[in-house]
């Protein structure tokens, strides 16, 4: 009795032929790239609602609630300032506090997006196995959540920058396109690591080390001039292409007067920033889409 196919009364067709005759499609067939983008657009409200929900949920057990959105970056900045600004004091960088905080907050945006992105598929397996929606919603929601967090940090940053004596200039406006480019870059990167993390659970263990190395290579905690002084020129040239460094430098140029820069020109900074956003944004999206059918397997 086992393994028997139920005979169709009206035809002796095989399953595939029957499916073709009545226009049935493969269950969970992957849509084309264009269709997929369209579906994501249709689900934009879900992405926004989910991102918001995650943000609220992450503070829901804390007594201070969403105040932590501002307190976390502040505490972070205080700890690093204590070590790198007071204990290992360096006087070479003008306005080191603002310099440090800009780097920290901008880098933190990418860092947390990547770290939560790695687990965005694995930690939502229940949702994925229960409901049908384009899976890219999950890593994109992570990016949106982190973007909201960043807005909190930016308010803190603006206060720090002003208190430490920087003037408000028109250059501050450059911060807007810079952050938008970084957001696109983060979205692509988050999608890429989300797919990798869904296949390779070990990635979660490795990620903190990768991120720390990346942070040291992005000139967050010390003057970027050290790169050009200490490294051979080819290596310092490579560091100049580091996307995190590029976005940090753009933010510093926007907010701070006479801050040290590694990149030779502002134009070069903008070109690399746009380049990275396009490459990572499009590349990460395509890479994630190619795995669309597999995410339910876990």
């Amino acid at each position, binding site marked *: 009795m*086992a393994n028997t196919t139920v005979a169709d009364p009206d035809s002796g067709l095989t399953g595939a032929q029957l499916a073709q005759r009545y226009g049935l499609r493969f269950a969970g067939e992957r849509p084309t790239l264009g269709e997929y983008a369209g579906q994501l657009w249709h689900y934009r409200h*879900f992405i926004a609602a989910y991102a918001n929900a995650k943000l609220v949920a992450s503070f829901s057990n804390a007594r201070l609630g969403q105040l932590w959105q501002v307190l976390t970056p502040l505490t972070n900045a205080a700890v690093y300032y204590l070590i790198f600004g007071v204990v290992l004091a360096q006087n070479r960088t003008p306005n080191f506090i603002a310099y440090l905080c800009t780097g920290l907050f901008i880098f933190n945006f990418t860092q947390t997006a990547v770290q939560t992105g790695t687990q965005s598929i694995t930690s939502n397996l229940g949702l994925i196995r229960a409901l049908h929606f384009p899976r890219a*919603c999950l890593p994109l929601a992570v990016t949106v959540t982190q973007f909201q967090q960043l807005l909190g940090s930016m308010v803190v940053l603006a206060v720090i920058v002003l208190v430490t004596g920087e003037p408000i200039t028109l250059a501050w406006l450059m911060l807007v396109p810079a952050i938008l480019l970084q957001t696109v870059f983060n979205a692509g990167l988050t999608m890429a690591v989300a797919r990798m993390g869904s296949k390779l659970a070990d990635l979660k263990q490795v990620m903190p080390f990768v991120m720390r190395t990346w942070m040291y290579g992005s000139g967050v905690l010390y003057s970027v001039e050290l790169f050009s002084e200490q490294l051979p020129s080819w290596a310092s040239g490579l560091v100049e292409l580091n996307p995190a460094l590029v976005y940090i430098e753009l933010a510093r140029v926007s907010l701070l007067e006479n801050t040290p820069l590694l990149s030779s020109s502002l134009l070069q900074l903008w070109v690399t920033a746009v380049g990275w956003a396009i490459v990572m944004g499009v590349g990460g999206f395509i890479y994630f889409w190619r795995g669309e059918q597999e995410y339910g397997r876990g």
Partner: protein
Amino acid sequence: MVEQFESSNDVTVTLPRVQERIPTVVVDDAHVIYRIHKGAGGGGGPVGALKRIMSRTSAPNIREVHAVKGVSFTAYRGEAIGLIGSNGSGKSTMLRAIAGLLPVNRGAVYTQGQPSLLGVNAALLNDLSGERNVVLGCLAMGMSPDEVQRRTPEIIDFSGINQRGDFASLPMRTYSSGMGARLRFSIAAAKKHDVLLIDEALATGDKIFRKRSERRVRELREGAGTVFLVSHQLSSIRDTCERTIWLESGVLRMDGPTDEVVREYEAFSGK
């Protein structure tokens, strides 16, 4: 009970009158294999793991579970099909494969439109209020924000979580397991579906809710093409399905009219 049994007989009688048999789901020799990382403890802790990497043998802590082994059947529009079998026989896996949530390793599953799985496992965000979870769940099913706003009160009413006070505004982690399951069922049942897959959903909640949800399933079935129902409650299978498929350890053991299959199954499980 007897009345319901008779009414389900009526349904069986009306079925052959459906002139055109349009298939909605074709399952063709489907195999589903889970690869499970058992994690540490697979053999000898870190040293063992290192040895395995050095000797390039595949880790014993990855095990394959062949959950569905070559199942084939065709479901037609207007049918309600019960899936029965003992625990771990691959029923839920089969549903997930039909829903396209879990890809088959071999064979194929063809469906008309997008089947929807209505399960009690739909994990929502436990830290959020029931109401926000309703909104999220509806958006995840692809409803527009307007529609969501309109439907939210209905869904909360249907779930009945507000019967003991205003629970809709409390986080879901404060709910009893029955309340959570009722809310999840209500969310998923709010949408019309071409092919509807129901996983044990009717077994949740108290008797009143069960009656209400069975009625809802019948309504959905009128709108939907085909309904699949997984349940250990043979009575609810008898009440709602005229055809039943019996899976046992991943193999299709019997497929036919509910009465016959359930009788065989009861004999098998020694009731």
